[in-house]
């Protein structure tokens, strides 16, 4: 009768332990899934910003903006008055001043082409708001989110590890052999379940 009671008590203790461990593993798995989703969300934002289409768009926007800035107040600006040195002297041949204006205009047009190339080149990287810096910022921001989620996952896993160290309560009946048996059974059950929970957690994470 005493032996039976011990076995029953041990079984109940094992079941309680199993329920506790299962609940802890499930809670940890839920937290892990949430943090994994947060990390994935941060990664998705970066992936979106780093897509070829978006990077090309960023580069082109930067190139247009830079070109506009570079031509502001420039003699190469299409709508600016091209400054001509001096004024044609009175009585001077108008063909001279006309030729002069043409040469200056041509020089300004050449400058426009080179400035557009400079703006395009600069828009790829090395400046503010260009493709390179935008990509770096996107990666830095995603790294922040991913690192935070990763740190949380490590912490939760470590906490689960502490919980998994909790042993089941072991019952013994005096010096009866049943008590030893019950203890052995509890130990085996604990190890077996602990291993399976670790496996489940690994698979979940």
């Amino acid at each position: 009768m005493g032996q039976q009671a011990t076995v029953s008590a041990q079984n109940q203790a094992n079941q309680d332990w199993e329920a506790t461990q299962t609940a802890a593993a499930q809670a940890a798995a839920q937290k892990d899934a949430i943090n994994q989703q947060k990390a994935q969300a941060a990664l998705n934002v970066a992936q979106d910003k780093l897509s070829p289409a978006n990077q090309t768009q960023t580069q082109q926007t930067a190139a247009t903006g830079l070109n506009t800035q570079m031509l502001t107040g420039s003699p190469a600006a299409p709508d600016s008055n091209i400054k001509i040195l001096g004024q044609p002297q009175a009585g001077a041949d108008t063909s001279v001043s006309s030729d002069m204006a043409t040469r200056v205009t041509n020089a300004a047009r050449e400058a426009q082409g080179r400035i557009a190339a400079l703006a395009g080149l600069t828009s790829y990287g090395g400046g503010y708001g260009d493709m390179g810096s935008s990509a770096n910022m996107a990666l830095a921001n995603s790294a922040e989110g991913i690192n935070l989620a990763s740190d949380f996952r490590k912490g939760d896993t470590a906490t689960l590890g502490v919980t998994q160290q909790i042993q089941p309560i072991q019952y013994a009946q005096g010096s009866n052999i049943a008590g030893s048996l019950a203890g052995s059974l509890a130990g085996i059950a604990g190890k077996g379940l602990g291993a399976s929970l670790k496996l489940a957690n690994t698979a979940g994470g």
Partner: protein
Amino acid sequence: MSGSTPTNTSAVDFEKQQAAEADAKEAARQASLQQGQTAIDQIFSGSPVMGTKTSNFDWSTFTPGSGRMPASGMPAGYTAVQVPAATTSPTGATAPSRSGVVGMNTNNTPIYAPTASAASSFAASAPSWGLEDASGKITKQGDPLSITSQYDTGQRTGGFDDAFYNDYKQKVLDYYQPDEQRQYDQAQRDLTYNLARAGTLQSSTAGDKMGELAYNDAIQKANIVANANAQTGNLQNQIQANKESLINQLYATDDPTLTANLAESSAAASRMQDPTLTPAAGLFAPALTAVGSAYNAYNSPYTVVQPGATTNPAMVSPTPASSSASSGKTTYG
């Protein structure tokens, strides 16, 4: 010892205590990290600008309490309460009145007694749920309820925004552009003088030189913008590096207050940073040098230029006097 007795209760209790402490410590650590990360984000990227909007409350998001489960889905500033179902008018337009709390539900929500006049007729009614605002007004579940809520406008205030970086870039431009303009004006004046001295002010040579000067002016202006943009990009990278360093310190210390203070200091230092400015070198020297050479060549009594010679374009347009009378004077063709 005929009964069964636990043999490791103390050890198990200790392990449970350890696990509970580890759990609480980890929760506190994560909250601390999250707080610190948010603080750093707001210091560097600005705080969200919240707007307010008024809308009708969607009762489908409200879940009344049941058994031991408390009510959920209440809008901010409202409390879920249980009231006798018939304490409102049939149209639901009038807020129910109550005479006081007569008890608590199992989910810790108050139960109000109906007014004395209504008590008799409502005594048999089943209680229903409603929401109570700060003033005590109760709106029965399902009745129209206008709520004011806050939402993120997507805008940010403070931090290192475009305005900050554009201001920095403008400082660089303000330093270099006037110098470039001054040098351009000087080169323009010198070129005019040189051309006048050479007697080529109204010549195709003058056109070429003016064009070259204008070309250089345009390119120099563009280079200044490119330089300002690069310096602004460097500043942005540096600020980003500062932010990452602070986040690393946050992880190392788990102290959001310390890290936030460091972030404030770093941000303030970044705001005071001056651009790297160096005096602009001579930007238009080549154009003037060429004119000077032409001027010197024209005025040298030893220069003999054959009409039609094209080795030096600057010397083509002015037509020198005949070789026999090469006194340095030029005529215009």
